[in-house]
C-alpha cells in the first residue's frame, strides 16, 4: 500500500474548514452514493466496500452475531527542548486494521498490519473462532455515518514542519528562565498525533474520521539555598496548528513559574482525616477516580463495581450532577464517533444526586438493553474496545467558592494533581496532590505539596456537601489507563467541599 497522504489531506482540509457542528444521523438510503470523503478514506487504506464486505463475511462465517473493522493510520511527532535548545525529535507511524467478532458478550479479536486482502481475511478467520456454529452470512448494504465535527481544524499537524514549532518551545523556555533567577532547568515537550480512521461493521455502517491531538508540556526546576523544587504544566486539545499561540505559551510559562516558586514555602499537612476543598478544574480527577471508572458498564455487567446495585438510587446530594461528554469542541476527550462506530454524546451519569446511567459500549448496551452512550474506546487498532471516559465533569451547584473556603475550620484546598487510581470493587480511590493550601479558620494559608489523598468512592460522593458555581473544564493532558490500554481524557469541576478524606 502506497500512501497518498498529501493528495488526501486537501480533500479533508476543505471539508474540515467549512464544517459546522451538526448532530449525527445515519444516512439510510438503500443505494448509497458515498461522499467524496468516504471514498478518499477507502482510497487511503486502498480498500473498496467490496473488500470490506468480504472481510466481514469471513469474520462472521463461524456464526457470529456481529463484526467490525477498525482501520487506523496514525502519525505521531514529538520534540523536546533541553538546555535551551530543541535538540531531539521523535516520530512514529503506525497503521493496520483491528477485526473484532462478537458472539453474545464474547469477543474474538485479531489485527493485521498488512492491509492486503489476503492478510485481512486471515486475521478475520482467526477472530471468527470465538463463534462455533457456522451459519449463512448475509451482506448488509453500506450506509454512511454523517459525522459531526467536534474538532474543526485549520491545516494539519502532519504537514506542520518542526521548524514552525520550535519558536514556541523556545519562547516557553525563555519566558521561564526570565521570570525567576532561581530557575536552573527547563524542559519543554510538544507532541502531536494525527489519526486517519475508517470503520465498517456487519450492519453495513461505514464511518471515517480525521483525529488530531496536540499536547504541550513544560517542566520547571528551581533551586534556592540548596533546595530543589520541580513543577510541570500541560495543555492539550484536538485543535490544529492554531493551537500554538504566544498567548498560550505565555500563560503556561507564568503558571509553571508561579507554582514552582511557591513550593519552597510548602509544608506537609498533619496526617489523618479532614475536610477537603477541591478547586475548580483539575479536581475533576475526583470524579474520574472516585466514580467514573466504577460507572463503566463492563465493571457493572461483570458484577465487579461497587456501584453495580445502585442504578436509579440516590447516591449524592440534590445539587450534584455529573456528566461524561464526548462532544465538547476541540476537547481532548471528544470524538466524532467512538471506536466502535457509535455517536458520542453528553451522558448524564448522576442527575441531581441520582445515578442515571453507566458508561456503555456495544456489549454492555446490549446487556442492559439501552442505547450505547458512545463510550466504546480503544488505544489503537491493536486493542479491543471497552467502556472508557471522555470528558468527565460536574455541573455547577448553588454555593460560592469563598463561602466554601470560609466554611472550613481545618482542612486543605487542592487544585493541582499528578495522578490517581481506583480499586473498582472496594471503591477506594486516591489522587496525588502536587499543589494546594492549608485552610485554617476559613482562610487559605501555607502552600502544601506532594501528598496522597485517599477515600472511598460511594462515601466521597455522598460526602460532597457544597458545590460552587465556577465550573472549569481542565485542558491538561490527561491519560487514562485501564486493562493495559491508554486513552486521552479530560475532566472538570466547580469548587466543591468533601466532608472527609484521608490526607497523608
Amino acid at each position: 500500500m502506497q500512501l497518498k497522504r498529501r493528495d488526501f489531506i486537501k480533500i479533508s482540509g476543505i471539508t474540515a474548514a467549512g464544517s459546522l457542528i451538526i448532530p449525527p444521523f445515519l444516512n439510510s438510503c438503500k443505494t448509497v452514493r458515498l461522499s467524496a470523503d468516504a471514498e478518499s478514506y477507502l482510497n487511503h487504506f486502498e480498500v473498496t466496500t467490496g473488500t470490506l464486505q468480504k472481510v466481514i463475511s469471513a469474520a462472521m462465517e463461524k456464526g457470529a452475531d456481529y463484526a467490525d473493522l477498525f482501520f487506523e493510520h496514525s502519525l505521531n511527532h514529538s520534540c523536546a527542548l533541553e538546555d535551551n535548545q530543541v535538540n531531539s525529535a521523535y516520530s512514529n507511524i503506525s497503521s493496520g486494521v483491528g477485526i473484532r467478532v462478537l458472539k453474545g458478550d464474547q469477543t474474538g479479536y485479531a489485527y493485521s498490519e498488512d492491509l492486503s486482502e489476503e492478510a485481512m481475511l486471515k486475521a478475520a478467520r482467526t477472530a471468527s473462532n470465538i463463534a462455533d456454529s457456522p451459519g449463512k452470512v448475509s451482506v448488509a448494504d453500506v450506509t454512511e455515518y454523517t459525522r459531526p465535527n467536534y474538532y474543526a481544524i485549520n491545516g494539519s499537524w502532519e504537514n506542520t514542519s518542526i521548524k514552525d514549532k520550535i519558536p514556541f518551545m523556545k519562547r516557553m523556555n525563555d519566558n521561564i528562565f526570565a521570570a525567576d533567577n532561581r530557575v536552573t532547568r527547563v524542559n519543554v515537550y510538544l507532541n502531536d498525533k494525527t489519526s486517519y480512521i475508517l470503520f465498517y461493521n456487519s450492519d453495513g455502517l461505514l464511518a471515517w474520521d480525521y483525529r488530531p491531538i496536540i499536547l504541550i508540556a513544560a517542566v520547571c526546576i528551581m533551586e534556592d539555598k540548596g533546595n530543589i523544587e520541580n513543577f510541570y504544566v500541560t495543555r492539550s486539545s484536538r485543535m490544529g496548528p492554531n493551537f500554538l499561540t504566544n498567548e498560550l505559551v505565555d500563560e503556561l510559562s507564568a503558571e509553571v513559574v508561579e507554582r514552582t516558586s511557591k513550593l519552597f514555602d510548602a509544608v506537609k499537612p498533619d496526617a489523618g482525616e479532614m475536610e477537603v476543598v477541591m478547586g475548580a478544574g483539575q479536581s475533576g480527577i475526583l470524579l474520574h477516580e472516585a466514580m467514573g471508572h466504577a460507572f463503566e458498564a463492563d465493571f457493572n455487567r461483570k458484577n465487579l463495581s461497587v456501584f453495580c446495585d445502585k442504578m436509579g438510587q440516590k447516591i449524592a446530594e440534590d445539587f450534584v450532577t455529573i456528566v461524561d461528554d464526548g462532544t465538547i469542541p476541540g476537547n481532548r476527550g471528544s470524538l466524532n464517533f467512538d471506536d466502535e462506530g457509535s455517536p458520542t454524546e453528553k451522558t448524564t451519569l448522576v442527575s441531581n444526586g441520582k445515578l442515571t446511567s453507566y458508561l456503555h459500549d456495544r456489549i454492555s448496551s446490549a446487556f442492559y438493553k439501552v442505547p450505547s452512550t458512545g463510550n466504546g474506546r480503544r488505544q489503537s487498532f491493536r486493542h479491543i474496545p471497552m467502556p472508557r471516559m471522555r470528558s468527565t465533569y460536574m455541573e455547577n451547584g448553588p454555593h460560592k467558592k469563598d463561602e466554601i473556603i470560609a466554611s472550613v475550620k481545618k482542612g486543605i484546598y487542592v487544585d493541582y494533581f499528578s495522578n490517581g487510581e481506583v480499586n473498582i470493587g472496594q471503591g477506594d480511590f486516591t489522587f496525588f496532590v502536587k499543589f494546594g493550601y492549608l485552610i485554617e479558620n476559613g482562610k487559605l494559608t501555607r502552600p502544601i505539596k506532594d501528598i496522597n489523598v485517599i477515600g472511598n468512592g460511594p462515601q466521597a460522593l455522598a460526602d460532597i456537601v457544597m458545590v460552587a458555581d465556577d465550573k472549569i473544564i481542565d485542558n491538561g493532558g490527561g491519560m487514562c489507563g485501564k486493562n493495559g490500554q491508554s486513552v486521552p481524557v479530560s475532566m472538570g469541576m466547580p469548587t466543591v467541599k468533601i466532608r472527609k478524606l484521608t490526607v497523608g
Partner: protein
Amino acid sequence: MDTNEKYALADDVIEHALKSGAEQVSVSVYDNRSTEIEIRDQKIDSLKESNQASLSISIYVDKKFSSHSTNRMNREELHSFVEEAIESTRFLAADEYRSLPDPELYYKEGGPSLNVFDGSIDSLDAATKIGLARKVMEEAYGKDERILSVSSYYYDSIYGDIMVTSNGFRGSSSKTAIQLVAEVSVKSNTGRPNAYWYETQVFFDKLKKEGIGSKALERALRKSDPIKINSGLYEVIVENRVAVNLLSPVYDSLTGSSLYQKQSFLTGMQGKPVASEILTVFDDPHIPSAPGSRLFDNEGLKSVKRPIIEKGVLKDYYIDTYYGKKLGMKPTSGSSSNLVFETGSRKPEEMIASMKKGVLITGFIGGNCNGSTGDFSYGIEGFYIENGNIVHPVNEMNISGNMTSFWFNLKEMGSDIREDDSIRIPSMRFEGVQLSGI
C-alpha cells in the same frame, strides 16, 4: 520475519540513510506474536491474536539527533521515511553530546547462553491454551458462596529483535514469555473486594499451572470488610509481590536523565550510604532463564553484572551514552536487567509471628514520589497485626515519608524472592513508618 530478513532490512535502511546524508545510524527491527485469552466464570470472554513488527531508526546528522519508528516495512516507503526523517533532523539544534556509543563498549561475542527462548510455545494450539486458563478459573469458580466473579487469563509472547549500528554493532535476541492469571471478586458487607494471583515463566514446562485460582480466591476472601486504623508510626512488612512499588522511585532517581534534570534525590550519593546496611542489590544480566537476562542493552552496550547498592551504600547509577557524556560519567546502561536482592533468613509468616503491633502491606493504590526531594506518599491496603496474629484487613490509608531517610528504617529482608520475575525482591520489614488513617 526471521533474523536474516530483519538484518537484511536493517542493512538496507542503514545504507540508504548514510547515502542520504546521515553521519551515524542505528536501526532495530522487532516482531512479536502473542495470544491473550480471558475466561470469565465458565465462558470464554475474549480471544485475541496479535502479530506486530516495527522498525526503529536513530539518526545523527550534523551533531543533531532524532529517532523514528514505523510498522510499514515496504522498502520504498522506508526509504522516503528515512529521507524525510533526515530532512527534519536538520531543523533541530546541534547537540555535541549526541553520538552512537563508543564501539569499545559494544557487546561483541562470546557471552554466556541465556536460555530465554522456548520454541515449544509456538506450537501450542488454541485448545491447550484455553484449557490452561479454564483450569485456573475452575480452581476458584463455585468454591465459595461469596464469589461474584472469577476471571482467568492466559498470555504468551514470542519476541525477536535485531539491532545494527553504522559503527559496528550487530546483535539479535529472542525471548518467550508465558503467563497465567486469576482474578476473583467476592461479596462482603462493605464492598466487593477483589484479588489476583499470577505465575509467569520463560518456559512452558516450568510454568506453575496450579494454585493460581485458589490463591486469588483466598486473597480476595481475606480482604473482606477492612477497617481503617489511627494515623501514627508503625512497624510494617511489605509483601514481596508489591515491594517493587517502593523500589521504583529509587530506580527513577538512578537514571542519567533524572540526575541531569535535577529530579533525583540520589544526586552525588555514589559511594555513600543511602539505605540500611542489610540492603544489597545487584543488576545481573546473565542469570540463565531469567526474564530480564540479556547480553547487551538497547544501545548495544555489553551487559555486565554489577552492584547497585551494596550493604546500604550506593555503588552505581543507570547511565546511558548521552547522559553519560552530559554528566561526565561512564555509561553503564540506561536500563536495568534482572535486579537481585540479597535475602534474609525468615519467611514473611515468621516475621508476622514475631510482630507485636504493625501492618502487613499487600497492595498499593496510587500515590507518587517527588524525584527532586524524595518526598513520597502512597495509598496502601493490607492487614493489621497484633501479637503475631492478623487481626483484620486495613484500607484507605497512606504510607508516607522521604526516600532519603525511609530506607534506613529497613530492618529485615525476607527469604521469599519470586524467582520467575526479573525483579527478585523479597518481603521487607521496616520500623517507624508513617501511616495515615483516621
